[in-house]
């Protein structure tokens, strides 16, 4: 293994061929990206191509061949997203400021208004997969103004038209189908024989249109109708309309906004904005309480069950174990949704049972304390089998003679547990408990599927709930139904990274201690 790896026969040529092919494809992609001015992406791909090729061709890189693909996967799907998220935390990226400045400028430049001139009714004719449009002029009804053929995928721009004595070939499209085609029709830029332009103005008409804005440099746009200027504000990420001749007066914002770096703004909001700060602190506390309680209860139940299952006099251990593992075997998302239904205030079986037995119908989803209790109960149910499995493994590793010795000393089972079992397994268990804490700290699935944060916290400026944990809070800020604020979400995510980083570091220390 230590001696040099010699190049092997014809296989080598095959490998070189494959590498060459992959490189070619990727390099083509790099050129495409570069052409589209995605320089960062192009550079990253180029870097991957170069290191990859080196690793697979050079003899020195031989040992890296085995790890390169795995490292690539980890860096693209874990490391890169982490860095990207931290980067987004310093921007105003959100549903109102979604696009880069260039794209927003293009959007404005593409805006049109109706100018004077004649409007045309139209009919669409279909022949196989191609369409032609017949424009009907109000003035010269006998002339047939027919467009070039086009279809959904190939649209000549501009689409030229010609006078023709005949109707276009093919079938006339019913109006209903024309409506279905409207997305394509809207994109058309029709050029009339006199070189004036038409575009779709309503479902039944094409009319003359022209662009509202023209680019006057420095990313500033001018309204051709009234001479007002649109100037980008790099602080807020919006275009500001400045009336002609009053360059200093502040006009109104014109959407959509564009993405700009806004420094520590998002972090400052978390600290200063009472609508975020309050819920954030409350959610942060609950996250830690929730993760801690989950670890505690799953550990207690799991350990208890592991001890019982391992207890020899209790026969049928195999069956017990199988049934006890069941909650772990069923995919979590199914179990969580089942609980969501069972705990339902009005139709849930749990409330029916409680009503039958005690005459109460607790409000599981609207009372804060009950909702939190429910979340912990469900998570304990979900998580104890994992703890039990780990504990069984650790219990098996405790030598029997320890218990034999304590039996001679006359210890009770409880004394056995606290003076032998627990001290023996707590050290190897520590890193696992920390990992479990980290898992629950980020247990988005449970919260998203069970309560979705309910009940809501009153006075929060972004959606936030009493059972929300930090990740689910972030998730709702980023992907919720009411406006997505990626920047703020990333700022909170950055905070979570730091927390998880600390936990991971502690875990690393604990693991090293076990190995020593």
């Amino acid at each position: 293994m230590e001696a040099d790896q010699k190049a092997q026969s014809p296989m080598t040529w095959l490998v070189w061929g494959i590498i060459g092919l992959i490189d070619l494809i990727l390099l083509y992609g790099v050129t495409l990206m570069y052409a589209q001015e995605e320089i960062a992406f192009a550079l990253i791909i180029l870097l991957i191509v170069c290191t990859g090729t080196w690793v697979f061709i050079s003899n020195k890189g031989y040992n890296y061949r085995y790890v390169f693909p795995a490292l690539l996967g980890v860096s693209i799907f874990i490391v890169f997203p982490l860095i990207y998220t931290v980067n987004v935390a310093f921007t105003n990226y959100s549903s109102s400021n979604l696009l880069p400045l260039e794209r927003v400028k293009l959007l404005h430049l593409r805006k049109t208004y109706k100018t004077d001139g004649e409007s045309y009714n139209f009919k669409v004719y279909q022949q196989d997969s191609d369409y032609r449009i017949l424009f009907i002029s109000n003035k010269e009804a006998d002339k047939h103004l027919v467009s070039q053929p086009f279809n959904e995928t190939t649209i000549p721009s501009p689409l030229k038209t010609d006078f023709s004595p005949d109707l276009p070939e093919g079938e006339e499209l019913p109006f209903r189908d024309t409506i279905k085609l409207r997305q394509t029709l809207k994109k058309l830029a029709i050029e009339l024989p006199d070189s004036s332009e038409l575009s779709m103005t309503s479902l039944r008409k094409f009319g003359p249109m022209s662009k509202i804005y023209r680019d006057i440099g420095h990313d500033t746009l001018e309204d051709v109708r009234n001479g007002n200027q649109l100037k980008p504000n790099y602080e807020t990420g919006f275009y500001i309309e400045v009336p002609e001749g009053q360059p200093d007066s502040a006009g109104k914002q014109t959407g959509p906004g564009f993405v700009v770096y806004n420094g520590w703004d998002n972090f400052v909001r978390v600290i200063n904005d009472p609508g975020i700060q309050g819920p954030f602190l409350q959610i942060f506390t609950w996250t830690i309480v929730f993760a801690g309680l989950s670890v505690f209860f799953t550990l207690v139940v799991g350990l208890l069950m592991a001890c019982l299952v391992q207890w020899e006099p209790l026969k049928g251990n195999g069956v017990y174990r199988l049934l006890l593992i069941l909650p772990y075997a069923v995919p979590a998302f199914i179990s969580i949704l089942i609980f969501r239904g069972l705990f339902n205030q009005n139709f849930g079986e749990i409330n029916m049972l409680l009503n039958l037995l005690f005459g109460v119908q607790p409000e599981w989803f609207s009372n804060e304390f009950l909702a939190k209790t429910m979340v912990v109960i469900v998570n304990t149910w979900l998580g104890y089998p994992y703890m039990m499995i780990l504990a069984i493994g650790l219990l098996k590793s405790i030598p029997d003679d320890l218990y034999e010795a304590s039996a001679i000393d006359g210890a009770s089972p409880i004394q056995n547990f606290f003076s032998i079992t627990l001290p023996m397994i707590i050290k190897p268990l520590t890193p696992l408990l920390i990992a479990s804490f980290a898992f629950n700290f980020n247990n988005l699935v449970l919260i998203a599927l069970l309560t979705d944060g309910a009940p809501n916290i009153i006075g929060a400026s972004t959606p936030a709930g009493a059972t929300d944990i930090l990740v689910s809070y972030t998730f709702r800020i980023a992907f919720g139904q009411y406006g997505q604020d990626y920047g703020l979400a990333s700022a909170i995510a950055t905070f979570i990274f730091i927390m998880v980083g600390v936990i991971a570091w502690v875990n690393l220390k604990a693991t090293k201690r076990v190995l020593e």
Partner: protein
Amino acid sequence: MAEVKLVNVSKSYDQGKTWTLKNINLNIAEGEFIAFIGPSGCGKSTLLRMVCGLEDITEGELSIAGELINDWPPNERRVGMVFQSYALYPHMSVAENMAFGLKLAKADKSLINSRVEEAARILQLEALLERKPKAMSGGQRQRVAIGRSIVQQPRVFLFDEPLSNLDVALRVQMRQEIARLHNRLETTSIYVTHDQVEAMTLADHIVVLSPLALDAESNLEQVGKPLELYHHPANLFVAGFIGSPKMNFFDGFIEETGNNETRVKLTTGEILTANVDSQSANKGDRVVLGIRPEDALAETDNGNAVEGKVETLERLGAESYIYMSHDTIRENFIVRVEDSRKREVNSKMKIELPIQLCHLFNAEGKAFHRTQAPAYDL
């Protein structure tokens, strides 16, 4: 089959800061059986692994059959190796284990079968061919491991402490089988062991290695025939290592040099004579006088004797060992006797060191030539 040649072979794991092996020079003739022996940490296994390519060679040259093969990977060296842990592939049957190498080499099916059958016949494994390794005893596994390398018809056989996992009785039996096998195949063999009995009984020549001292030129101590090492150890290290129990050493000074008889004065004042050629030394030089436990004689006093105190007795039946103390002794003072009934612990006793059986070493540990030693070249 081929001869193996090592020229100044050295090994360092940290780019030359510290060395595990230094300047090993060996010529192993075709068909020879050679044993590497030394205490743990002397690098004997490392040296073997360098011969088969599992470790790279930091410095020096290794050639097999006249070809320099320093940079050849193990799979191209055509050597066979028997590992201490046997290293049988657990997921393959005995037959598959033995056929694995030939299959990789895309050998003919009929050739593979005939080779495997032949090896099985030689090693009496015919009945076990379909078994998996875990269903076999240690001795059987050992034979399969040997069979696996026989099948490949390697140029050199390498054995890495092959018997150390077996119990004593089996070890003796396997030792004889390996000897028989070598007589039959006459393939060049290198055998690493820490057990000197194995080395003495199996090898044509023994290579003694020592853990490398900080400024030593080499850790190859001596190469020689088994009895040569026993009767003519080149230095203190070999003298102490070969033979069991260990040789007894006394500190002293040269009283009178000579080409046949040398007189030594111990620090206790006792004067002893040894049949060694000490003309290269001077009177008053520091020396170490050695006598093997089986050579010393208890309670006969022909003048060449020391007086010690009996500490403990080990009665083994056919023989007994007397553990004694003496002011000038290094490490141990053991005397082998046939009958220990009359001895008593704490009693004083005279021990005779027969003149022709004494060894003498200078301050650097190098041996003076023994003039009256028995012939070993049989």
